[in-house]
């Protein structure tokens, strides 16, 4: 009895210390009036662009060399991102200024869940599936609904079943090779599903994190490599196919590690240094004529948000100003994928300090 009480006292004394150690030092940044107004303008743009069935039309396709080869179609991934942009503003299904939009996004995404649990429309692939699963998880977390849960359960099970022996994922479910970009999307979707009570085997996440860590370039051994970056594909798996690294891939890698609860380690420290290096930061011109400017910042912003200081208070204002400077008069942004995609991504990035989306929480 005496020893139990002693143990409780020790635990109670130790608890604040433990909590403090896990807390991140981050300067609170509130959205200023100008940013809020611009976000509103962008969300209004998205609201106007939504199709009657809830979908958003943008380019469905693939990266080929340095371009995005696509055909316009009702894009389930972009619809999910637009839904996340509305959720980030605090709207939930049928509630809030964009509640109707969120509901319509949910309806469209759910209509794209096929009997196998794969979320697809007009040939969209694993990227779209992951964003759609993430969106359903966030919706279910903010406004629980049994029908959403069933779609989410099947979508998450589909991700788990399609993880390959490397621990990663690729464009198609069940593919034998993997890349870090798609892997990180799936990890984030699985984590979001797990957060709202969908069973995700721990081994699946652990295996994926091993893959992400294997992608880390600890030491440069050739001119193609830059320490701190993350490989697109793990080099030793594909000796015949030269791999590469980039800002977007590294941002994805660091975010995946944070997402899996890895808050320290050489991969995180090195990755953050890489991302913070001005030489690696995407050029402003890429905002309009590339396909991964917003994608890179989407993950980088999450990474620095998780990292806190000294990065966060410098990174957010700088990127915010850069993105706001590229906004069109109608409230939209545009890149190679399309204006709905770029606008939705921008809205999500700019609203990260609002912390409405559970997935961005530490």
């Amino acid at each position, binding site marked *: 009895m005496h020893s139990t009480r002693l143990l409780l006292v020790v635990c109670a004394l130790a608890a604040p210390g433990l909590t403090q150690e896990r807390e991140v030092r981050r300067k609170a940044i509130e959205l200023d009036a100008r940013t809020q107004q611009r976000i509103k303008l962008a969300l209004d743009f998205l609201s106007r662009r939504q199709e009657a069935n809830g979908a958003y039309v943008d380019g469905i396709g693939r990266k080929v060399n340095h371009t995005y*080869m696509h055909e316009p179609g009702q894009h389930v991934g972009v619809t999910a991102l637009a839904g996340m942009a509305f959720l980030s503003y605090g709207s939930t299904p049928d509630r809030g200024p964009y509640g109707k939009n969120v509901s319509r996004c949910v309806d469209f995404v759910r209509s794209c869940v096929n009997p196998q649990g794969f979320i697809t429309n007009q040939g969209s692939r694993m990227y779209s599936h992951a964003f759609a699963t993430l969106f359903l998880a966030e919706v279910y977390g903010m406004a629980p609904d049994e029908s959403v849960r069933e779609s989410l359960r099947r979508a998450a099970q589909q991700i788990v079943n*399609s993880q390959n022996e490397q621990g990663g994922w690729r464009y*198609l479910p069940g593919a034998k090779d993997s890349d870090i970009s798609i892997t990180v999307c799936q990890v984030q979707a699985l984590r979001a599903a797990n957060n709202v009570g969908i069973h995700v085997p721990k081994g699946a996440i652990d295996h994926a994190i091993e893959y992400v860590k294997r992608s880390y370039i600890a030491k440069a051994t050739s001119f193609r490599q830059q320490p701190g970056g993350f490989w697109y594909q793990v080099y030793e798996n594909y000796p015949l*196919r030269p791999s590469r690294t980039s800002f977007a891939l590294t941002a994805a890698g660091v975010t995946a590690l944070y997402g899996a609860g890895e808050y320290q380690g050489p991969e995180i420290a090195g990755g953050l240094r890489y991302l913070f290096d001005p030489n690696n930061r995407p050029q402003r011109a890429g905002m309009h004529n590339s396909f991964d400017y917003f994608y890179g910042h989407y993950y980088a912003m999450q990474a620095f948000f998780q990292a806190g200081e000294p990065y966060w208070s410098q990174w957010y204002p700088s990127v915010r100003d850069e993105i706001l400077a590229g906004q069109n008069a109608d409230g939209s942004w545009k890149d190679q994928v399309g204006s709905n995609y770029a606008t939705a991504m921008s809205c999500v990035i700019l609203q990260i300090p609002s912390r409405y989306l559970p997935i961005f929480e530490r």
Partner: protein
Amino acid sequence: MKLRVLALGILAAWPALAQGEATPTNQLHYPVNPTLAGMLDGAERARNAGNWKQAVTLYRNVIDEDHAQRTAGYQLAFVDSKRTPGARSARRRFKGITQLAIEGLRSLPAEGKRAFRSAYDYRAQAEFERALRDERPHQALSLCYELYPIATVSPRILETLAERALEEGRMDRARRLLQRLLAHHRDELEEPLWIQEKLLLCALGMGDAEGVRELADELGAAQHLEQAEGAQVLLGGNLTSVAELVARALEVQAIKNGQRHGERPSLPLPRGDAAQRAAYDQPVSLGAARFRPLRFSRPQVQNGASHSDMKIYMPSRPTNPARNLGVVNDGNLFLALSDRIVAYDLKTGESAPPIRSVTQAYNDPNPKVLFSAALHQDVVMASFVHDVLKDQSFRGIPIKVQIPIRKLVAFDTARWRWLWTHDTLLRETDQANWSFPCAPIVHEGVMYTSAFSIEGWINCYVAAYEVESGAPLWATWVASGQVEQTMFGEQATEPLCVPVAAANGVIYWSTSFGCVCAVDADTGRPLWVAEYDQIEVRAPQGYYASPRLITWENNPPVIEGNVAVVAPMDSNNFYGFDIETGESWRQPQRSSATNADMKYVQGASDGKVVVAGGNLVKCIDVESGKMLWNGRLVGKVVTGRGVIAQGAVFVPCEDQIKVFDLDSGKPLATVDAEVTGNLAVCGEHVIALRADGHLAIYQNRGFHEYRPR
């Protein structure tokens, strides 16, 4: 010191080895539902504890839940796994959730069944009455039986189904339903003799002389008839002699097999029966060709680099694997190609009036597709290429490759016009994007086939359709897998697909995606799904896909006795699966010298299955999987699918047909034949279809010596 290093090495490698064990060769995605499996577990615990009320409630809830999720189809539960020494991953076995619940309910003792009836009889009766009014009563009644398998009304449901089948003249279905009635509800029947009489009528209608003899003997004994003047039975109130009944059955059998002189024969299924056994109960003796070989299709090209995005088209040669099988209706041979149907008179070789095409012209280069058809009541059903997914490339590197999308079509041979096409029929349904790469089969008057859809995964389905209208009856998602991919993550080849087989109301299919399944023919309920060892699908190396080396030709499962023998195209081995449980035996790896060239399942009979390929023929015992004999073809190569006729195995080679004794493997004869390839027997004709599009019809001299065994 060395030992220590070795031990350290093993220890260091241990986690990797363990991980490797857990990783499947290729990812497979099943409709597995752990929640429902957990509920089943709970029901079993309650049953074992004697808590009948809780057990029946849980079983019923599981069945209702499984049926409520019809958008996703039936669900599966994991049963067990088995590891083959040296294999990369264990072979898993699943069972259908509803099937497990039905088995659980049937195993309840009398108190448990009473608990079920007191709780659910009222609902079962209401469902039965609703099903009787349904526009598709057979399907509705079958579903009703599935929902309430041990209710008081359950025997009546089966009896009603059997009566309706008898009225429609579907003797095989009626017999199967009556057998189920006796198997599961014998104690509840008021007049079991009446059921036996109906069974006898079914056997008579089907021309099953052996069955008639057995059933008549049983019935006579049960009727306690005086057997002084030869065996007799009381059938429909009349005293009939058993010998007369057997004679009538033989007459029916002769008509069905096209063995009556002067009649124009029919061969409704190209491999003889729905079980795909290619076994004929008549002697075959190859005579002269009826006419000079005909060319039934334009010169075909075949993709020399099989299953790859690197296309090397080559003209097809006579020694290539034959790709065609035909059906015969009223003396006319119908051959389905990739885009049209052609017909010839069996006796004269004259072409029938041309059949207008309903699709675009397409010369199919895929060497693994089997062009075949099925026939039912003058309707020929086949699969045509209706659309081709476009290819796309970047600086010569393939992004997408052409993938044909095939749809089923039906041609009415009596009116000589098209009856329906799935291209238009399924356009507004959830099967709009499905491809049907194989010919269907007809079993008990219903058309069954396999299909796939490409939606990220390649999803595999078994489906049933009405012959007359092509309307869907049910479709079951079995599993999803993946084929080789291009560097840009698109499928680099058309998914492989083999036809289904059917026996006793169960459809069997080897998916070509790592598993074999058995589903109920009435509702599509999965009974079991069992895996086999797959050939690994590798990631693209460099800019191109890495094609698998696929050696088995397109072989449907063969059902012989209690075993489904499969030679999956995505595996190096061949397997026998117990048709009740899905448990399997496995023949060794293709790397062994005796299996190196195996390509075709020739046929099965008398508990034996014959496989052949290269210059080797092997006979295997279907129960044990053990090899009984093997025969060599000196200087010859097997070029197609043979047949088994009254204990003789006919193996087609380049310009000869070799005949072996099924029991001993002893070579019986070698017959020179200008055209060989895929063989079929239809009464007094032997049909041979060669890879390069040539057809020959030989006289069957054995036809005149026909004596039923």
